[in-house]
């Protein structure tokens, strides 16, 4: 799991690349939470277009970061979810809670 974070004007952008399973989620969770604590953003964007595998542990990671963001007064958005991410979000019925945006350039 490759994790890149970038903060600009109160927006923390986190890009994940690789397989978002339990193994990957544990690593990503630590890195993302550290970045949120460090930058106190107003908005967290999870860019998930290069996540080629995602199971319920990935769903747990997204929901956990959603709660973490809320706890510091930030919103959380998923940007450009890959097919793998999208099918899990759909199946879970969390489409109402997990806000998704598409950049339109992909």
């Amino acid at each position, binding site marked *: 799991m490759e994790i890149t974070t970038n903060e600009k004007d109160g927006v923390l952008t986190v890009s994940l690349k690789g397989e978002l*399973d*339990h193994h990957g989620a544990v690593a990503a969770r630590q890195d993302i939470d550290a970045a949120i604590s460090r930058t106190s953003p107003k908005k967290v964007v999870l860019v998930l277009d290069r996540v080629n*595998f995602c199971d*319920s542990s990935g*769903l*747990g990671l997204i929901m956990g970061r959603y709660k973490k963001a809320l706890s510091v007064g930030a919103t959380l958005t998923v940007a450009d979810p890959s097919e793998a991410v999208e099918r*899990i979000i759909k199946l879970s019925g969390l489409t109402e809670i997990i806000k998704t945006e598409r950049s339109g350039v992909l």
Partner: protein
Amino acid sequence: MSATAEKRKAKKAVDTFKLRFSAKSVNESFARMAVSAFVARLDPTVSELADIKTAVSEAVTNCIVHGYKDARGDAEILLKGSIYADGRVVIEIKDKGLGIEDVETAMLPMYTTDPAGERSGMGFTVMGAFCDGLKVRSAVGKGTTVVLTKKIGFGRL
């Protein structure tokens, strides 16, 4: 069960594998890759492959985080697979961990005994949705066995 289903079941597996690996999270992807490689000969579609990989990943993760409480890297998970002549794939995932007291309740959507671990209780729901069959046997203190059935290439025969 219908007569045809009965007949199919009676057929012998045309190919099988058996693997035993440590209950470590790094092996979740190993288990997915092993199963992908095993079913590759059936020429699965992208979505069939994603379905079976995701279901296997759920079952293996459950062995590690629930069966062995994330702390038994010395313990082992048994992964078995069979291919039947009609394209049915049966995958069995087994741990010798804590077991489940009430399997029926555990399989309900959103049911989890580990919300602190950022679990949403969707694993069994995912397995059920992405496979054609899901069976769970468990005994407290003995362990848990999950049997997944996936039809591959049925629409294309």
